[in-house]
């Protein structure tokens, strides 16, 4: 079974019980892109629920509909999300988005990958 997917929007793979989800720079991040990304992740995970490390360092601003979709449908088969953000660019924005559109699962923002992984380890089943 494949456990690695690379599209024009993201790179996704599963390693040691965690889904690593790296956003690439998306010029026009609308609801269609959000739906496609959730679909791809679900297909990769099949029926398994995983904690997700979401690398948002290169992320552009998703539209409002995309944000809504990601916060609700984006929580499907996810036990927790750790956002890995850049302290100078995406951290404040990610924090803002999480307050407006909170995901339905536990989530936290980190600026170091190791800390994010540490947080997620508690959610590996």
């Amino acid at each position, binding site marked *: 079974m494949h456990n690695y997917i690379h599209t024009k929007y993201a790179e996704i793979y599963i390693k040691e019980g965690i889904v690593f989800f790296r956003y690439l720079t998306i010029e026009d991040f609308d609801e269609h892109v959000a739906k496609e990304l*959730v*679909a791809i992740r679900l297909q990769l995970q099949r029926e398994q629920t995983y904690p997700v490390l979401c690398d948002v360092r290169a992320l552009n*601003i998703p539209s*409002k509909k995309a944000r809504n979709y990601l916060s*609700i449908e984006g929580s*499907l088969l996810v036990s927790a999300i750790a956002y890995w953000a850049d302290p*100078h*660019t995406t951290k*404040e924005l990610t924090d*803002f988005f999480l307050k407006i559109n909170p995901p339905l699962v536990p989530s936290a923002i980190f600026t170091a990958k190791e800390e994010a992984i540490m947080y997620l380890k508690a959610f590996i089943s």
Partner: protein
Amino acid sequence: MNPHTLHTDRLKALRTMILELAKGNFAYRLPINTTTAQPKDVEILLNVLAEELADFFVYASSFNERNIPEPFIFVLDTKHHICGLNERFRKLLGYLEHELLHQPLSKVMTASSLEQLKEKLQNIASQELNASHPILLCFSTQHQTLLDCWGYCHWVSDGKKSYFIFRGSVIEKRKDPPQPPIKLPPNRTYATLQLQADLQNLKRVHQFILENLHTQLPSLHLIARQFHMNEFKLKTGFKELYQTTIFKFHLNKRLEMAMVMIKFTPTSIKVIATSYGFKSAAHFSRVFKNKYGKSPRYFKPK
């Protein structure tokens, strides 16, 4: 450009944005300067704020009149061609009837509005027949003026062909000068605070529902108690803010989540039904078919 000029320009742009928001122009967006290393967080945050406010104010204030006085009405076929219209619609756009009938909607609608509408129609066509859906439209009239409108769209079908019926009205632009401030009764401040608290509570209820999609909701009475509201305010306030009832929203969201699971995971329909709190697979299939017109099995990849 020297850093001082850049700083001054940026402050000027921020002031303009704040002014536009204060005037109620939620469509205004700040240009994001990507060529400099200057932090652009504030610009982006203001743009997002405008987007959130627009959504909140337009939907919360416009879509509470079901009986629209003198509505415009037009009908679209599935290829987005106008196949019926009333006199009000014709007059608003300034064309003769034969100049509109059987023409693509793109002739009279702005490109961005048309794009949003097409997306919305796709969504509507996957939902219940005849239900009314709030909608915002922007027309370009024969005189090259833009006309912002709001209204409702209904998806109807005679079994062979489907149509989208629109009825709506123009969003009136305020042209009158600002009115002198009205003297508020002494308890008005309290009323305003109460309204703010209610809105925040309703948003918490909305989040509570989303966090309880896997189970049945408690009664309205219990939800009202949990969020310190009275039952009437909870019921009517939620409907006004979200254009649907609490239980319909809960059911629709569960069905939408189930649809994503059906389409993109190998999980059985029985398991999906149980995980979203349906009593049985048969019960789930019945309400699913009511919403999407087809059974869950139809959407399962072969």
